[in-house]
């Protein structure tokens, strides 16, 4: 009897504790990873990009419900390209930062300036990969700024919509440490721990690698946020995330792999939302390793991989196998017709013969669990390469080996950082991109000329033609092979109407007005 009473007391207490936390306007999210710091200008990571949209605004907004780019007013109410190299923007005058200070043109100039003329080393990298062509930002008057490019810039809108150009408060940052009128490295570091933006939610609490709490920003210039509070907690273990959702401790969980979907779908109180994500899981080759130098060998390795079978077996057919390095998010530059990558084992065998491949083992580097399904995919590809007579040695190790001269082949991912081929293919394969910088990819003069036409031509048809030529070059001399676009799934409590949106970069958790409804059926 006593035991029974104790048990029911325990159960009642548990129900209070578990069900307690969340009111009608509160959302609790369990994520696989929490960011170590939050600064939209400095961050390029898939973990960090989940969290910026709710708390920060770029100058030019975007309709994220649409897959192709449709620009909307943001911090800027209007913009006009006054010459091929100059964009003029008119700013709102009712923008208030989360700390209560009014946003000025000076903040806008500073936000871009800190990246294009960096004094804090981490911004260097963002200057190189995102804003290499932006030469200056000028304040024309209190409500007008000009962004000036070095070469004619066809991507002004796209670049001024990126996470890296979101607006941050100058005075607040300068005042965080040391001299309140000086911008010191320690100011930027302190900002990344106590971030302040202009977005619909302010960041009320941020414990790096652990927890993030958003609270509605009542002075927001746009539509009011639908939730009073959002608590985001890191729950790194998959089984723990699923248990927390089933147990009613959280309302949404991220990173549910395909083989776990049935666990959630079988529960009447839960549901699953998902999307083909604009990120490629890829295989890259070190073209500068003498063993891998022959383009015919690399072509053969690419042709030997049956990506449709990988999709069926690893992703239940929900992923997308691309024909070229292209996403629907590219809009007019989406070119699936290019057929850059295909499966043809007979041709692979022929090319191996022509390349004189003598059976030497090819080392394939992969982390154990960094990418979903990565190790399984490596093992399947090992079999596929064996089918055409290539020996693969799987080397499981965590460190990045992209700059290692002995690297031969490895897996990687290539996200969409902004919706243009420059913002995905270009980040990694531009003549000054990551791969060339790390020395495993060496474009020739012809490639560089094609790149210049593609990157800076203001004529869309010309850009399209040049990108097709670049893909032709890549087909003949492959440094990369996109395997598939993964299907990312989220588990939700049934009453939560939310889903990932195709107009965002990968993994963004958007809880702004119109993007989420609680208490829905």
């Amino acid at each position, binding site marked *: 009897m006593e035991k029974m009473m104790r048990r029911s007391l*325990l*159960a009642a*207490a*548990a*129900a209070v*504790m*578990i069900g307690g936390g969340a009111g009608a306007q509160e959302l609790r999210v*369990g994520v696989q990873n929490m960011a*170590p*710091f939050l600064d939209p200008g400095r961050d*390029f*990571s898939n973990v960090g990009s989940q969290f910026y949209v709710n708390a920060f605004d770029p100058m030019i907004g975007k309709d994220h419900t649409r897959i192709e780019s449709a620009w909307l007013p943001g911090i800027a109410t209007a913009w006009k390209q006054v010459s091929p190299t100059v964009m003029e923007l008119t700013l709102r005058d009712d923008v208030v930062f989360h700390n209560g200070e009014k946003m000025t043109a000076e903040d806008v100039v500073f936000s871009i300036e800190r990246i294009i003329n960096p004094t804090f*080393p*981490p911004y*260097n*990298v963002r200057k*190189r*990969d995102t804003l290499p062509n932006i030469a200056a930002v000028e304040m024309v008057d209190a409500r007008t700024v000009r962004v000036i490019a070095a070469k004619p810039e066809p991507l002004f809108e796209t670049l001024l919509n990126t996470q890296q150009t979101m607006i941050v408060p100058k005075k607040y940052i300068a005042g965080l440490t040391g001299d309140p009128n000086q911008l010191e*490295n320690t100011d930027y*570091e302190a900002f*990344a*721990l106590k971030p302040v933006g202009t977005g619909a939610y302010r960041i009320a609490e941020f*414990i*790096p*690698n*652990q*927890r993030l709490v958003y609270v509605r920003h009542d002075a927001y210039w746009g539509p009011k946020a639908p939730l009073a509070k959002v608590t985001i*907690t*890191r*729950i*790194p*273990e998959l*089984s*723990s*995330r699923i*248990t*927390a959702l*089933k*147990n*009613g*401790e*959280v309302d949404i969980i991220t990173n549910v792999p395909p083989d776990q979907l049935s666990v959630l779908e079988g529960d009447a109180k839960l549901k699953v939302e998902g999307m083909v994500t604009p990120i490629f899981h890829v295989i890259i080759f070190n073209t500068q390793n003498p063993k891998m130098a022959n383009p015919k060998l690399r072509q053969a390795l690419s042709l030997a991989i049956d990506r449709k079978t990988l999709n069926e077996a690893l992703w239940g057919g929900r992923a997308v196998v691309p024909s070229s390095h292209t996403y629907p998010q590219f809009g007019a530059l989406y070119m699936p017709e290019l057929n850059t990558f295909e499966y043809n084992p007979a041709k692979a065998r022929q090319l191996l013969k022509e390349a004189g491949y003598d059976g030497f083992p090819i080392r394939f580097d992969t982390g154990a669990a960094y990418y979903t399904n990565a190790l399984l995919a490596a093992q399947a590809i090992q079999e596929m390469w064996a089918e055409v007579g290539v020996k693969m040695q799987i080397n499981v190790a*965590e*460190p*990045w080996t*992209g700059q290692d001269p002995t690297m031969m082949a490895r897996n*990687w991912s290539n996200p969409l950082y902004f919706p243009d081929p420059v913002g995905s293919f270009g980040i*990694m394969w531009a003549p000054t*991109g*990551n*791969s060339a*910088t*790390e020395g495993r990819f060496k474009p020739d003069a012809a490639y560089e000329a094609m790149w210049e036409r593609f990157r800076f031509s203001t004529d869309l048809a010309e850009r399209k033609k040049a990108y097709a030529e670049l893909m032709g070059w890549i087909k003949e001399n492959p440094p990369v092979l996109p395997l598939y676009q993964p299907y990312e799934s989220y588990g939700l409590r049934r009453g939560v109407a939310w889903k990932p949106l195709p107009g965002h970069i990968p993994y963004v958790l958007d809880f702004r007005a119109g993007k989420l409804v609680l208490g829905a059926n």
Partner: protein
Amino acid sequence: MAGFLLRKAGRMAITLWVIATVVFAATRLTGTPIDFLMPEGLDAASRAEMIAYWGLDRPVWDQYVAYWSALLRGDFGLGFMERRPVSTIFAERLGQSATLLGTTLLVTIGVGVPLGVLTAMWRGRALGSAVLLVAFLGYAIPNFVFAILLLLVFSFLLHWLPSAGSATPLHYIMPTLALSAYFVAALVRYTRNAMLDVLGQDYMRTAWAKGLAPHVVMLKHGLRNALIPVITVIGLQMTTLVSGAVVIETVFSWNGVGDLLVGATLRRDYPVLQFGVLVVACAVVVVNTLVDLAYAAVDPRVRLA
């Protein structure tokens, strides 16, 4: 007593210096954290700038001297990943980890020792065998398997207990059970064996013959003599307990010290790792000292002078 504590403190300092030095060297031997701190595709100039920014361009010897001079000033450095004082990072997490270790230790001693005494008294009876059987199970099941079983029953199926985090006392029930099962089982067996050794001694027969009350015989004459090996075992198990907590914190998403140390090891976050190992080493050294003091408390023959 003062002399004992002084000598102990001296030995403790040497131990900590050796540990800190070994950790300092070992972390740097496994490679640079720069690949984890910075994005892929850094050009050589930015890379060099970043390495200098983190202070990793200086010769290892310089870094070592700087580390110690800061340490002696009470400055434990900034974590590479979070760029915050490591003492702050730990302070956020230490409370819940220490509480988990504390509740586990209490359950272990509070349940393990009495059960050990009882099973010794119940030797040859069904009840005693039943307790031993359960203890063997607790000893044999890996803690993470037991933890997942608990989660499955009490969170996933019954929805009685919260599964993730450490916000309320209810959050402590399953992690404490999962972590203490092994140690309770171990302690039951050690205490039982130690008691059985003692029960056959002449002075026990004398105690019974004097007509003392059973609880006086068992506790004052029996348990007190049996406790010496039991205390040794508790001291030795402390390090196992800390490493067990790493696993249990992961299963129950505790964001505790164990989780922090695993992350720091994977990303080669030197300052966090160095501080964390020092904290754990300090804890173990302090517990060992307490064990020495406990010997003296239960055995007057042990002198601390």
